[in-house]
Structure formats: structure tokens, C-alpha cells
């Protein structure tokens, strides 16, 4: 059963869902609702990945972002103990926002001018991972093979990155957890 004809519709559905929910993340004032909207953004992104024939990325997206990262985001919101609207009422610097708007606009102009100007070369997908390859071997196998053969070194480096992050977390929370370290903190205040 070929359902390719609904693919464009699916794409527009997921794309508008992603953009809309991402917009809501910014607009909604209650941080917890924003977080919930972020989950929706991640899910609809996963939908787009599926449409692009890369199921493995979609699964990882749901696992890591919609699952783990969102737990962290919620924890941070809880940690900060924000009453609703606590952050919103702070006055924003007008000059800063003007500068920010100007530079974002410049960046936008730059990117747009690049895409508009010049006769474009053919923008067909390039590289080894083509639609045909995915069709014959499956995106999961292609992904794993690339990860463990060509991209072996970055893969191993990721373990270093994670270890650095582990050390970092323990170092930054050192004074707040653990009784022995608490004493040191008190000494530090007494000096």
C-alpha cells in the first residue's frame, strides 16, 4: 500500500504544528505550560524526521528530547520556584532590544539575499546516504554503520564529552550536597 500522496499533507501538518507550538513556547507566560508546548514541538519534529525516512532519529528525538531533556526542563522550572509571571514584569532595555532586532534583521537579510541572489546550482541531495540506500537497507542500519565506521572518532569523543559533563555537574553542586562539603562552605563564608 503506497501512501506517498499524503506525504506533503503530513509534512505541512507537522511543520505547522512544530512552528505553532514553538511559537506558543515563547508566547505562553506560565513556564510549565511552555514546557508542555516544547514537548509537542519535539514530537512533531519527530514526525518530520519520520517523513524524511530517518526513523532512528525520530526515535532518538522522542527518547532524549521529549523524554529526558523535558524532565530536566521541568526540574529547572521547579528548582527556580517561579511564581507565574515572576520574570515577565522586569523592564527590558529598549536599546538592547533595538540592537537585537537590528542584528537579527541583518542576519535575516544576509541569509535571504544569499538564497535569492545568484543562479542556484542544483540542490539535489548529495552524499552517500540517499533515498535508495535507505530504501534497501533501512535508516537504522545505515545510521549505525556510519556511526561505528566513518564517524568512529566523534563517537568515542562523545564519551569524553559526557564524562566532562559528569565532572562538571558534581563540581558545581559540590557545596550544596554532601555533609563534608557543607562544612567547607561554612568555612568559606567565615573568612
Amino acid at each position, binding site marked *: *500500500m*503506497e*501512501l*506517498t500522496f499524503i*506525504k506533503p499533507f503530513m509534512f505541512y501538518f507537522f511543520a505547522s504544528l512544530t512552528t505553532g507550538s514553538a511559537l506558543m513556547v515563547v508566547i505562553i507566560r506560565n513556564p510549565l505550560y511552555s514546557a508542555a508546548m516544547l514537548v509537542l514541538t519535539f514530537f512533531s519534529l519527530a514526525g518530520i524526521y*519520520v*517523513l524524511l*525516512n530517518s526513523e*532512528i532519529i525520530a526515535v*532518538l528525538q522522542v*527518547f*532524549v528530547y521529549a*523524554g*529526558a*531533556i523535558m*524532565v*530536566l526542563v521541568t*526540574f*529547572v522550572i*521547579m*528548582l*527556580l*520556584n*517561579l*511564581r507565574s509571571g515572576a520574570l515577565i514584569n522586569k523592564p527590558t532595555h529598549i536599546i538592547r532590544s533595538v540592537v537585537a532586532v537590528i542584528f537579527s534583521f541583518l542576519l535575516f537579510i544576509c541569509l535571504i539575499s544569499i538564497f535569492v541572489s545568484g543562479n542556484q546550482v542544483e540542490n539535489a541531495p548529495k552524499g552517500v546516504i540517499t533515498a535508495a540506500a*535507505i*530504501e534497501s537497507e*533501512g535508516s*537504522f*542500519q545505515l*545510521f*549505525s*554503520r556510519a*556511526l*561505528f565506521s566513518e564517524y*568512529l572518532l566523534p*563517537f*568515542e569523543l*562523545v*564519551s*569524553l564529552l*559526557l*564524562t566532562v*559533563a*559528569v*565532572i562538571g*555537574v*558534581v563540581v558545581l*553542586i559540590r557545596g*550544596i*550536597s*554532601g*555533609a563534608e562539603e557543607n562544612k567547607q562552605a561554612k568555612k568559606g563564608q567565615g573568612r
Partner: protein
Amino acid sequence: MFHSFGPILMQLVLAIGFAGAIVALTAIIGPKKINPVKMDSYECGVDPFADARGAFHVKFFLVAVLFILFDVEAIFVIPWAGSFLAFKKAGLGLFIYLEMAFFMAILLAGYYYILKKGALKWE
């Protein structure tokens, strides 16, 4: 490839539809007679006395971050497990085994470190 997602889509539509329908139906056909006694806590319940949004201890955060880090690590194991046989058939079983062993060794060093530091101890 695409058609194999039919069941998942179906499931998704059914789940959202069912949940949405139930919520909508209760709102529409459920009786709405509100009185003070009804809205009160149950007999043996405790009256709410504070905002549910209290500050959490930072330890929760520590655990959450460590969870994410090891979750990301686990993500790398899934494709490894999935492609192990293919590599083995190509006569490179030892190679891919060592790859993951090296990856794990570094992370286990980190794990040993947090255990010894007592980051997971709950006082």
C-alpha cells in the same frame, strides 16, 4: 518504508481521539452541580496549606542531570546492538566490541567517580 507507520498513525489518532472525546463528553453531558461540601477535601484528606510549587532541593537536579547523561549514553548503545551482527558477519566483531568497550570504559570511570563522590547518596 512509509506504510509501515500506518499502525502507529492509527494508534496515535485513536489515542488522541479517545482521550479528547472523553474529556469533551464529560464537559458536555456531565452534571455540573457545585456546592461547598462537594469541593471540600475528602473526610480523611488534608486541607491544602501551601502552594504546590515549592522549591526543590538541588539534589533532584543533580540526579536529573546525571540521568540525562547516562540516558544519552544508552542511546548510543541501541544502534550498536542493532548493527553488531552485521559487523560480526563482516569479520569485525572484535573491532566493534572494542569500540563500545572503550566508550564504556571512559563512562564507567565517570560513574565510579560519582559513586565515590557520593553524588548519588541521599541524606
